[in-house]
């Protein structure tokens, strides 16, 4: 089997629900068997191109196409199974309940005879290195396993073009390696053409032949960012040299954390969070990082031991953050959860930032001042009237950070702040966090991103493996 040839001529796509084109004026030639890394800012149309090649953009009622796009000369929508697609979210891709059925799903749709189908299933699972029983529940797999399952599902269709849309963005370090190695084996053995969309190019070094960059160069927007008070990110010193690092704000003793009552995820943990310090909580998926973050942030009760806020932080509130009211939490501990979609409450970007200050019953002029200031500093001012759910991933991330900062908390807990972000948003997040720490705010970052921690000179607290 050989790889497919991909050709785009002045290709563009506009979703029926949007005014702007998701991708436009694209010319691209990819030779059979070539391995391409597709990069570009968020919103440059990378995912749209991949979806189009996979034939899942839909027909004329879903949007408008211009120019041509072809796999071996055919419209991608007419050649089911010629391209296989793996998406970013591991939870959104398993279709069936059992591993074997899930891999077989594509073959069933293509009308592959039963004997041939199960041969393909077992060879696909072999190739991606997923050595679990065919009856295993797809929900019981780890993130890296789920992504390899999705890869096997695509592979079983024997595609000549493999499309990967940020397949490792939601994975921990070992999951990233698992998936990268599986992809390398697959393209080596099948000779399929490969297109990977990925922000972290270094992961794919050695697998890809060349990089194709979509959309405008990043320089114009970066320049605007440079003029904001957050300043350009700079490498901070080691934790010990950071000023204000003396005042403890939150202390834990023998802390055990549990997401669901009665099922402790990690512990016992003794930690001190100090003003002006960046604390990075790291560890593999399932080690209880997010659960610890939420317990520190006053969102989950301690399963054992204590979390105590210093007198300075708590003021007139109770010593344990979990006993604070939602409004008391606002000025003390701010949190940005991992998924922006669950956190956005308002109808416009401006109102979103105003939610916290309003809950604090601040005077209207003060609310307006803080909101204007944050919109400006986070480069969201031109989007003030937009609906939060229409923003790009990077913009949503900045918005949730802005909504947290509007109430000026002394401690900021950020769950995967750089997760799946393009390099520009990454730099912005580093800049924002560095400037907060310089103002004496304590930052707790739950992250897989060791570059982030070294850029911030963070102290690392590493959690053990899942129990």
């Amino acid at each position, binding site marked *: 089997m050989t790889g497919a040839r991909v050709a785009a001529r002045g290709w563009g796509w506009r979703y029926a629900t949007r005014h702007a084109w998701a991708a436009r004026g694209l010319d691209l030639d990819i030779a059979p068997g070539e391995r391409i890394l597709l990069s570009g800012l968020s919103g440059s149309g990378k995912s749209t191109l991949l979806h189009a090649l996979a034939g899942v953009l839909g027909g004329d009622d879903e949007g408008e196409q211009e120019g041509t796009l072809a796999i071996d000369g055919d419209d991608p929508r007419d050649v*089911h199974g010629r391209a296989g697609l793996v998406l970013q979210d591991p939870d959104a891709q398993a279709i069936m309940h059992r591993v074997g059925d899930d891999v077989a799903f594509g073959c069933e749709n293509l009308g592959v005879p039963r004997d041939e189908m199960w041969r393909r299933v077992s060879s696909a699972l072999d190739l991606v290195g997923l050595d679990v029983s065919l009856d295993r529940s797809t929900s019981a797999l780890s993130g890296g396993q789920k992504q390899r399952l999705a890869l096997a599902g695509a592979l079983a269709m024997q595609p000549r073009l493999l499309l990967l849309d940020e397949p490792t963005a939601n994975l921990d370090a070992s999951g990233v390696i698992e998936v990268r190695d599986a992809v390398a084996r697959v393209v080596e053995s099948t000779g399929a053409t490969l297109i990977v969309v990925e922000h972290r190019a270094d992961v794919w070094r050695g697998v890809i032949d060349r990089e194709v960059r979509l959309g405008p160069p990043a320089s114009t927007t970066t320049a605007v960012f440079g003029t904001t008070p957050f300043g350009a990110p700079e490498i901070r010193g080691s934790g010990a040299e950071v000023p204000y690092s003396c005042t403890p704000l939150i202390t834990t003793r023998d802390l055990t954390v549990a997401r669901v009552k009665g099922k402790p995820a990690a512990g016992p943990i003794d930690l001190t969070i100090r003003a002006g310090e960046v604390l990075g909580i790291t560890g593999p998926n399932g080690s209880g990082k997010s659960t610890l973050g939420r317990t520190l942030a006053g969102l989950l009760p301690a399963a054992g031991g204590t979390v105590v806020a210093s007198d300075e932080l708590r003021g007139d509130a109770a010593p344990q953050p979990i006993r604070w*009211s939602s409004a008391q939490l606002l000025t003390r501990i701010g949190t940005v959860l991992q998924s922006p979609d669950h956190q956005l409450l308002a109808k416009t970007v401006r109102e979103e930032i105003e939610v916290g200050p309003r*809950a604090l019953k601040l005077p209207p002029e003060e609310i307006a001042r803080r909101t204007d200031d944050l919109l400006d500093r986070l480069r969201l001012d031109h989007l003030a009237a937009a609906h939060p759910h229409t923003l790009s991933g990077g913009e949503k991330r900045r918005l949730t950070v802005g909504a947290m900062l509007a109430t000026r908390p002394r401690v900021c807990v950020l769950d995967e702040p750089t997760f799946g972000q393009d390099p520009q948003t990454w730099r912005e997040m580093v800049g924002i966090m560095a400037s907060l720490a310089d103002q004496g705010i304590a930052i707790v970052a739950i992250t897989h991103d060791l570059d982030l921690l070294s850029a911030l000179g963070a102290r690392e607290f590493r959690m053990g493996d899942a129990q």
Partner: protein
Amino acid sequence: MIPVAQVARGPLAGINPVAKLAAALLVALPLIVTIDWVSALTALVLEIPLIVMSGLGWRSFWLRTLPVWIAAPLTAVSIALYGEQSGEVHFHWWLMNISDGSLELAAATFFRVLAIALPGIALFAGVDPTDLADGLAQRAKLPARFVLGALGGLRMVGLLVDDWRELEAARRVRGVADQGRIRRLAGMAFALIVLAIRRGTHLATAMESRAFGATTARTWARESPWGAREWALMAAGLAISVTALVVTTATGHLNIIVAD
């Protein structure tokens, strides 16, 4: 998220879920159109072997059928109090009226609820959603698009529980969790619907990218089994309902709802 059901291990456990569904419907059908106690009690007695053979352990049997054991007497009591009056009146107060007629009707309803619900629950206790989908599409010839879409959606239910937890945490973070509980819950419910639609869209994309909806005739990874056992189970269901009707007619108790 959704535990794979491995409850039942009886002689009926491996039978095609479509046959179980058909048998349960065959048993229920005459009980829905008649309203006398003899047919219901006869069916209930004849169902006992079916329930035993379903292989559901005693503990899980009582646990799963508990709502039925609560609902059946409650329905019976209200029918006894308010049912159509006939024969000797034993008790009368305001609208309450216990008579021979209402007592008979109450007994009929009590047995009827049990006779319809118990075999359904017992037969379906061990059914795996995937096997049911296989059967519905291959044997009952329902459209594959519909059956597989529903099966895929079912897997999302567990994720919605996580979504709800996340929405709760987010409201506390944003400072809006102190008051207005009802309004907040309404807002969260709406957000959950939006998230569910988004998850559904993602699932649809994943399915389409695996050639779901292609014009090629679909093949199936597993044949949904259908043989003597399936026919036998359906015959048993039919026998139960026919026997119940014959007995009640022979004893002169037959009372068909539409004939009233």
